[in-house]
C-alpha cells in the first residue's frame, strides 16, 4: 500500500469518531484451507494469499489491513515476517494482531511487542518500521495478521491500491471512504474539491463508487506479478487503482490545465535575459545557419558541469559557497553548473535568445516507467528535452544527457510519452522511436590460432549511438581502470569463447561524443580444441557462449522491450597455423523476421585464413504479446546459427594430450 498524503489546511471534526469499534476479529479457521497442501489455481507456488482486505477511511484518519496466507513450501515461510514502514510523528501503526494456524488447527498467537526499527532519519524527519514475525510457522500453516494505521487529524490521505502481489491472491477487497469536504489548495493555489481515481484493472473489473464517497473493489483469482525477460518497467503494467484529491474535474481538464501551467513555468524559467543574450551572441555568428547556431549552443551547454553526472552540491555546501539555488536559465549559465533539467532549460533559453524557435518537451524516463495519461500526475515525467523548429522540421535534442551528440536522443527518452510545447500550444506528445542504423556496433579484428588451438589477437569494437553514449557516461563516473573492468565484465566476459581471456587495452574517442568510440581489445587463451587430425574452433567469436533470449519462453504476457533498435556487426579473421586448412565451414545466409529483425552470415575462406562476418539487425523497440511467436521463431534460428563451428584439418604431426605428472 502506498498513498498520497496532503496536509490539510483545517482540522476536520469528523475525526472525533473513534475507529475502535471497527476492529477486525479473526474468524474460526477454515478446515478446507488447513487441509490444503497445494493450490491448483497456482501450481508450484510457495504460498498463496487466501484473502487480502485493505480499508482506508480518510474522514476517520484511519486505515486497516488484513491478510490471510497459506504457506505451501519452505520458501513461503518468508511471508511470516512483516515490515510496516511509517513516518514518525504524524502516523501510528497500532493494533497489530497475528497468529499462526497449524494444519491440525492448533493456533499459536503472536505475542510480545512488535519491534520498532529505524529506517532513516534526517533532521526532524524520521521513517521507522514496525516489524514482527509470526511464531512456529510450518509448511501448511495459515498465517493471519491485521493492523491499523492512524494519522493526524490535519492530514488528508488517499490510497494507491497495489493489487497484484508476489503470489496468487484468491480474494481481495479494497474499500476507501473519501473526504467529501476538503478545505485545502494545491501548490498552484487551486482549490482542491474533487477526488479522481486511476484504475488499471483487467477487463470486466471496476471500482464501485457509492454514495457518501465510498469506493469498493472486489476481485478474485488475481495472478501474481509477472516476471519475464526484457520487460518494460513493470510498475506501469500491474493492476492498481490510484486515488487523488485534485482541483481538476476530469482527466481531460487535468492535462489541459497541467500542461498550460507547466508551459508557463518553462517559459518563465527559460526567459532569455540580457546577459544570456550577450552570452549567446558571443557563441554564435550571425551568418551561422540555424542548425549551426543550435549546435554551437548545444556544445556550450554540454560543456557545463552537469551535476547528474558529477556531484550535486549539498545545501550546506551551497551556503558555504554562497551559491544560490537555480531559479532560471541565467542562474545556470552564471554558475556554469546545473542538473540535466537545468541544462536542458538553459539550452531552450539560449536557442530562444538566438532567435530560434524552440520548445520544451517533458517525457518519462522509459528506463523507469511508462507514461500513462490516465495517471493524473505530471510527476511521472522527469526528463526535459528541447524541440528545435527549423526548415519546416522539428529536431529533438537531448542537452541534459551529458555526452549525447547533437541530434541524438538517449533511448530512455525515445518512444516516450509526455507533454510538449508547440506553435499550437502545449499538448500531450510521444517522442520518435530509435532507428537501428543510428546505433551501430562493429567488432572487427584478427585472431591468430596456433597448432594447439591457442589464440592471440586484437579486436576493435567500434560503437556509436546508444552504446557509445552509455560508455561515455560511465567514464564520467569512474576512472579508466574501473571502466575497463566494467567493459570487460559486461561486453566481453560472457561473450568470448570459453577459455579465452579478452580485456580492453584502451579506448579511443572516449571524450569526444562526435567521434566513434573504439575499445581496443586484446585476446588470448585456448580458443579451440584439437584432436589428432583436426582443430575445432567456434564459428562466431562473440556469440558462441551468449544466451539468446526468448528461445525457451513459449508464451508472453507482457510486451518485449528491446530499449532501442541497433545493428551489431562482427567481422573476425582467423589466421590459421601452417599446414591447417578448412575442412568444414559455416553456412552463409540470412534469417529474417520481416520488418523487424535480421541476421546475415557470410564467411570467406582464403589460404591460411578465414573471415567470418555476421550482422544482427534489431529494427524494433517494443513487440506486443501477439507478435511474440514470430519474435521467438527468429531468435530460435539465431540461436542455432550462433552455435556453428569451424573444422580445420591439420597435418598429422601435432598430437595434444593433456597429461599432468603430478607430485
Amino acid at each position: 500500500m502506498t498513498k498520497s498524503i496532503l496536509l490539510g489546511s483545517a482540522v476536520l471534526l469528523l475525526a472525533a469518531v473513534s475507529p475502535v469499534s471497527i476492529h477486525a476479529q479473526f474468524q474460526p479457521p477454515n478446515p478446507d484451507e488447513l487441509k490444503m497442501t497445494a493450490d491448483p489455481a497456482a501450481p508450484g507456488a510457495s504460498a498463496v494469499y487466501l484473502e487480502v482486505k485493505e480499508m482506508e477511511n480518510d474522514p476517520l484518519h484511519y486505515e486497516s489491513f488484513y491478510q490471510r496466507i497459506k504457506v505451501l513450501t519452505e520458501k513461503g515461510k518468508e511471508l511470516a515476517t512483516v515490515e510496516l514502514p511509517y513516518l514518525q510523528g504524524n502516523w501510528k501503526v497500532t493494533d497489530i494482531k497475528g497468529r499462526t494456524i497449524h494444519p491440525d488447527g492448533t493456533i499459536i498467537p503472536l505475542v510480545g511487542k512488535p519491534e520498532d526499527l529505524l529506517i532513516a532519519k534526517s533532521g526532524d524527519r524520521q521513517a521507522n518500521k514496525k516489524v514482527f514475525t509470526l511464531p512456529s510457522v510450518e509448511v501448511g500453516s495459515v498465517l493471519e495478521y491485521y493492523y491499523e494505521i492512524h494519522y493526524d487529524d490535519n492530514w488528508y490521505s488517499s490510497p494507491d491500491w497495489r493489487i497484484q502481489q508476489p503470489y496468487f491472491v484468491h480474494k481481495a477487497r479494497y474499500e476507501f471512504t473519501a473526504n467529501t469536504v476538503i478545505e485545502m489548495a494545491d501548490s498552484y493555489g487551486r482549490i482542491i474539491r474533487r477526488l479522481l481515481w486511476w484504475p488499471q484493472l483487467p477487463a470486466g473489473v471496476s471500482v464501485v463508487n457509492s454514495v457518501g464517497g465510498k469506493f469498493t473493489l472486489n476481485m478474485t483469482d488475481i495472478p501474481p506479478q509477472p516476471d519475464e525477460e526484457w520487460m518494460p518497467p513493470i510498475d506501469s503494467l500491474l493492476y492498481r487503482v490510484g486515488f487523488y484529491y485534485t482541483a481538476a474535474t476530469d482527466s481531460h481538464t487535468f492535462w489541459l490545465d497541467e500542461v498550460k501551467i507547466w508551459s508557463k513555468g518553462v517559459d518563465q524559467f527559460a526567459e532569455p535575459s540580457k546577459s544570456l543574450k550577450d552570452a549567446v551572441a558571443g557563441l554564435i555568428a550571425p551568418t551561422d545557419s540555424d542548425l549551426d547556431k543550435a549546435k554551437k549552443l548545444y556544445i556550450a551547454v554540454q560543456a557545463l558541469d552537469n551535476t547528474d553526472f558529477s556531484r550535486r552540491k549539498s545545501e550546506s555546501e551551497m551556503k558555504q559557497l554562497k551559491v544560490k539555488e537555480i531559479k532560471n536559465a541565467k542562474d545556470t549559465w552564471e554558475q556554469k553548473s546545473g542538473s540535466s533539467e537545468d541544462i536542458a532549460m538553459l539550452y531552450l533559453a539560449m536557442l530562444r535568445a538566438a532567435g530560434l524557435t524552440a520548445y520544451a518537451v517533458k517525457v518519462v524516463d522509459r528506463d523507469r516507467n511508462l507514461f500513462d495519461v490516465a495517471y493524473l500526475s505530471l510527476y511521472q515525467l522527469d526528463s526535459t528535452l528541447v524541440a528545435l523548429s527549423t526548415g519546416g522540421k522539428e529536431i529533438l535534442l537531448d542537452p541534459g544527457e551529458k555526452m549525447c551528440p547533437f541530434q541524438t536522443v538517449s533511448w530512455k527518452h525515445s518512444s516516450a510519452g509526455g507533454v510538449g510545447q508547440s506553435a499550437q500550444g502545449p499538448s500531450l506528445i510521444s517522442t520518435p522511436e530509435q532507428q537501428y542504423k543510428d546505433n551501430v556496433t562493429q567488432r572487427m579484428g584478427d585472431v591468430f590460432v596456433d597448432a594447439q588451438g591457442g589464440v592471440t589477437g586484437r579486436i576493435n569494437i567500434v560503437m556509436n549511438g546508444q552504446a557509445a553514449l552509455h560508455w561515455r557516461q560511465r567514464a564520467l563516473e569512474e576512472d579508466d581502470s574501473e571502466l575497463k573492468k566494467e567493459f570487460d565484465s559486461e561486453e566481453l566476459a560472457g561473450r568470448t569463447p570459453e577459455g579465452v581471456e579478452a580485456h580492453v587495452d584502451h579506448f579511443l574517442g572516449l571524450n569526444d561524443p562526435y567521434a566513434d568510440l573504439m575499445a581496443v581489445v586484446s585476446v588470448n587463451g585456448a580458443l579451440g580444441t584439437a584432436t589428432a587430425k583436426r582443430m575445432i574452433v567456434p564459428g562466431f567469436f562473440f556469440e558462441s557462449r551468449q544466451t539468446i533470449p526468448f528461445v525457451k519462453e513459449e508464451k508472453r504476457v507482457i510486451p518485449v522491450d528491446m530499449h532501442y533498435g541497433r545493428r551489431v556487426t562482427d567481422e573476425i579473421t582467423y589466421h590459421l597455423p601452417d599446414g591447417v586448412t578448412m575442412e568444414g565451414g559455416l553456412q552463409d545466409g540470412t534469417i529474417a523476421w520481416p520488418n523487424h529483425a535480421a541476421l546475415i552470415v557470410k564467411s570467406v575462406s582464403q589460404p591460411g585464413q578465414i573471415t567470418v562476418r555476421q550482422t544482427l539487425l534489431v529494427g524494433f523497440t517494443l513487440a506486443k504479446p501477439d507478435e511474440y511467436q514470430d519474435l521467438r521463431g527468429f531468435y530460435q534460428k539465431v540461436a542455432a546459427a550462433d552455435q556453428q563451428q569451424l573444422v580445420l584439418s591439420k597435418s598429422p604431426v601435432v598430437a595434444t594430450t593433456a597429461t599432468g605428472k603430478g607430485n
Partner: protein
Amino acid sequence: MRRSSGTSRFLIVAACCGMMLFGSNSAAGKDKDNLLPEWAVDAAKTPTPAGVKDAPTVILFREYLEAVDAQGRAVERKRQAIRILQPQARDQVCAVWYDVDEKINYFKAWTLGADGRQYQAKDTDFFDHGAGEEGIVTPILLDTHKARVVHPPATDVGATVFCESEELRAPWDHEMDWEIQERVPFALEALEIDLPPGLNFSESWHRFPPVKPVEVAPNHWRWEIKDMPALDLRDVKASLEPEALDARMYVEWGDAAVAGVESEWHALGLWYTNIESHRADPSPEITAESQQLVAGATDFFTKLTDITEYIQKNVRYFVVERGIGGFQSHFAGDIFRNRYGDCKDKTTLLISMLQAVGIQADYVLVDDRRGVVDPEAPSLYGNHMITAIEIPDGVNDPRLMAIATGKNGKRYLIFDPTNEHTPVGNLPYYLQGSYGILSAGVESQLIPLPVLAPDSNGTDEKGTFALSADGSLTGSVDTLHTGSEGADFRWMLKYTDDKERLKFWEKYIGQDLPDVTLTSFQFVQATSLAKPLEFHYKVSVPNYAHQAGPLLLVRPRVVDDLAIPFDDKPRQVPIDLTATGDWRDSFDITLPPGYVVDETPDPVNVDMDFASYHSSTTAKGNVLHYEREYVVRQVELPPEKAADFRKLENAILFDEKSAAVLKKQ
C-alpha cells in the same frame, strides 16, 4: 559474529559499513576560512603516495584512540583523512555505527576542496539509518544497530575529507580489531590505547609482522604503520575472501588480556561460556520433546540424528539481536516456543536438547570464511556459531566424520545446526580447514576444524542421450549428490518454487547446453539428510551437435563444468579449492543412423597430491561413451602450487571443451 572497530554482530551479513569515525574537541578553526582542526591541517600536508595506482581514494591518515576506564569500558576516538583520487569516490561518506548500549559523543566532518577552500559539514549533511537499510541480506527481525552517516561537502576529485568522531563503546566490549588493510591504500595509520593503571593488554597480528608500540604516556601505547598497500582481490581467481587475507591487529584489555596465545584463546572461550551461562538450560517442554525424539534410538549416532534433524527441520533461521545480543543467544525455552532463531539460538537449542538426553555439547565461535580465524591471532572476530558435541569414549562410528580432537584429548563432533541440510557427522565445506573457539568453561581452547575425506562429498552423474542428424540431442540425466553438494541442492529446493527451479536449472545447464529445455525434472529427497539427494531430469537441446560440411561435431562431456577459472598471473595469495569431494560423470550418446565416429578426444590424466582428474572417450558401435572422475583432497593450496593448479585446470578445461568428430558413412 563479526567484530569490526568497536561493533559486533552475529550473523551472516553482507559486508556492512566501513566504520569511519573520527574525533577531537580541538576541531574548531580560528576563523571562518580556516575551519580545519590542526590534526587535519597536518594530515592534509601528506602527499599522495607514489605507489598509489588506480585507487579511488587514499587514506592519508587514520588514527584510533581507545581511552579505557577502570571498568574496562572504552571511549573510541577516530580521526581520518581521505583524499579523493577518482570520480567513483565522489560519494565518499563517513559513518559511525552504534547500538543500544553505545553512544556517539560527537561526529564532525570537514573538506579541503580541490581548490583549497575549506568546508565543514552541517547538520543537514548528517543522517541516521538502521542496519536493515545497509545491504544486510539476512532477513532480520531485530537488529538495533544504526549508522550515523555524513556526506561531507565538496567531495570532488582532488579534495580531502576529514572526519572525526568519539563514541562510548559497549560496556562488555573489551577488544579492538584494528583493520589495517582495506580495498584502498593507507599512508599513515595509528592506534593508541590509554589504559588505567594496573590494566594490562595483549596484542596479536593477522597476516602482518608485529609492530612494537611506543609508550607515549604511562600505560598509554601507540602503534604506527606507514604505506599499507590496498588489498584488491577482484581480479584474483580462486581466492579466499578478502577478510581472510586483510592484515589486522587485535588488542584485548579485558579478561582475555593474558600472556600467551593459548591462554588468550582459553580466556576468550571462557568469557563466552559466561555470556551464555544458563541460556541452554532445558525447559520441561524441551526435555519432554527431546526424550520423546530419542525414545527409539539404540546408538549415539541415531540419538544425535533424531535431535539435530528436528532442529534443522523445525527451527526457522531468523536473526534477533539487540546490543550484546550480537553475541548472546536467547533462552532455549523461548527459541523452542517460537521455532525461530539465528546461529547462536540454534546452537543453544541444540545444546539444550542434547543435554536433556545426556549428551554434552558446547559452543564454537567460528567464521564461515576460511582463514579469518587465525590460530596465531586470538580475537572474537568471526561471524558464526556452531556446536562441538562430545563423543563418548568407546563410540567409533564411521558416520561421525567431522571430528576434532581437543588438547584435553576429548573428541568433538563438529556440527553446524544453522546449515539445515548438512547431516550430523558431516561438515559444510565452508567450515572445513578453519578454526573455532571451543567455549567449554575451563576446557575452552582454539580447535582446528577437520578437512573431510573426498568420499564425504560429491556427485555421481549418469546420462543417456540420443543424437539426431540435425544436431538435436535428447536424453536423461540421473544424479546423486552427497555431503555439501547434497546440502546445497536441498538449500536451493527449500527456498525456491517449481518455476524458479526450472528457471535456475535451465540457466545452469544452459551454460553447457545453450537453449536447453528441461522436459521434466524431479528431485528426490530422502527423509534422512544422511542419504544422497537424487536429481533426475530430461533435456531437449535443439543445436547440440554442429554440422561442419560433411562432419558432425559433438562434445562427449554433455553437462557439468568442473573447471575453476584461473589465469597466468603470478600468484601471491592462497588458492581456494572450495571443497574436498569426488565427482564422477558417465555419459552415453547414441549416434544418429548413418554416422560413425571418425575421431575422439584424447584421454586426460592428471594426478597431483591435492587432486586428480581422469577422463576418457570411447566409441562402441553406435554409442559414444564418456567418463571422468575428479577427486579433490584439499580445500586450500599455498601460492607456490599455482603452476600445478593451473596445469590441472587447463587440462579440465581442455577436456570439457573437446569434441568428437562424426562422419557420415
